[in-house]
């Protein structure tokens, strides 16, 4: 309750020790490119879906690293697999393949 007209923002700090990163580690094993991303954002800048849906491969990877999987899936639902991000990645990451691998690993886990 705030009688002041403003309130304390919830902390955005994350404790990586309490997050289960096993699926992200499995992803890095199968798709080593996941660890090569330097978060430059070229993929997000070129993504035709990002402007109206918020899709961003860079953010998806960061969310998975930080255990925010639901947020990542919400974004990935908007991916059209057009492959533009693959063409612009300065690290040569096959982002299209990466997205499909993420779907495979995380989907498999959810069906267990």
């Amino acid at each position, binding site marked *: *309750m*705030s*009688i*002041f*007209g*403003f*309130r*304390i*923002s919830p*902390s955005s700090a994350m404790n990586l020790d309490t997050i289960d990163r096993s699926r992200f580690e499995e992803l890095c094993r199968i798709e080593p490119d996941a660890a090569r991303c330097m978060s430059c954002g070229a993929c997000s800048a070129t993504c035709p879906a990002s402007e109206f849906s918020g899709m961003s491969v860079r953010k998806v990877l960061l969310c998975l690293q930080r255990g925010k999987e639901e947020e990542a899936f919400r974004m990935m639902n908007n991916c059209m697999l057009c492959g533009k991000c693959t063409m612009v990645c300065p690290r040569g990451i096959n982002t299209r393949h990466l997205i499909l691998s993420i779907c495979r690993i995380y989907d498999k886990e959810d069906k267990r």
Partner: protein
Amino acid sequence: MIYQGKQKIWSDYQKEIPDDHWFYVRSCIRQNFFPGSERMMMEICRNVLGKDFYETEHHTTCGGIAYHCDTIPQETAMTIVARQFALMTEAGYENYVASCITSFGNYTEILETWHEFPELEAKIREMLWKACRKEFNKPKYLAHSSDLIYKYRNDIAEKARFRLVDKENGEPLRVVEHIGCHYSKMFPSKGVGGAEYPYVLAGMIESWGGNVIDYPERRHCCGYGFRQYHVKANRGYSLSNTHKKFESMEPYKPDMIITNCPGCPYFLDRWQYVIAEMEGKTYGQNGYGIPVLTYEEVAGLVLGYDPWDLGLQLHQVAVEPLLDKIGIEYCAEDKYKGLNRKDIMRPGLPENLKCF
């Protein structure tokens, strides 16, 4: 890193502060927030240490708040500052000391800008002449007033009646030092110790007997940030910053906080009340808050001045538990007596934050 390399880096962040003859300019807001601080600075420097400090009633704001709030262009702030320098020149001084951190940052930024763009300095000189027929010399040395107390810290320690230690067991008090962002984050070489290891307040604490607490968010902003607090829609950011700092320092059980900025003591002090009202949480012992003092107030306390003459009754967080811990005598009945024992009225007491 080799030791000599470290020494060299550290030496870049030391200041050769002149000992005497200062032109002193006050802060716009400190006199309202903590009115005893600047008076105590003058009292200590002039009467206790016998230094030459000059101040004039003609000086104005430095324009820093308006500049940082984007309501005036920098040229306007520069002309205001040029006028202050003209007052210093007229008074025959060459060393300029500002009481406010934002002023210090503003003066530093302007002097550096003039150094890089001399044509701008010429333009400002012309504007000042057109506006008020004044001319100025740039100060030979620019300091913040905490630099001077830092320089005089050992002289103050020699004359001190009290030390920052627990009178019961002789243990040093655990003190949090908080440096204003505009002190050295913009121009690290202008502050004692630079931006990462500013030593200006830590040096005072060590000289006066306390222990400095190193906690994770030590260099975090207090949350004032002009565009955060002054815009009500953003005020939650200001509070959240302070909240983050208190959450970080809480496990170290600080006895007090020392600051050298006009805004920081105010917000670290008053937001404790707001946090207590919003979340029911207090950060000091037994339901009290953590007292937040300016360095002049702490200097005054160790020198044995009456806490109520220092204006400590105007703090939101009760300072009495701290005074009791150090062993400083005070008269509880005189807390709300002003000059000539005039009653200045008692404030209403908060529900969650314990106060007297």
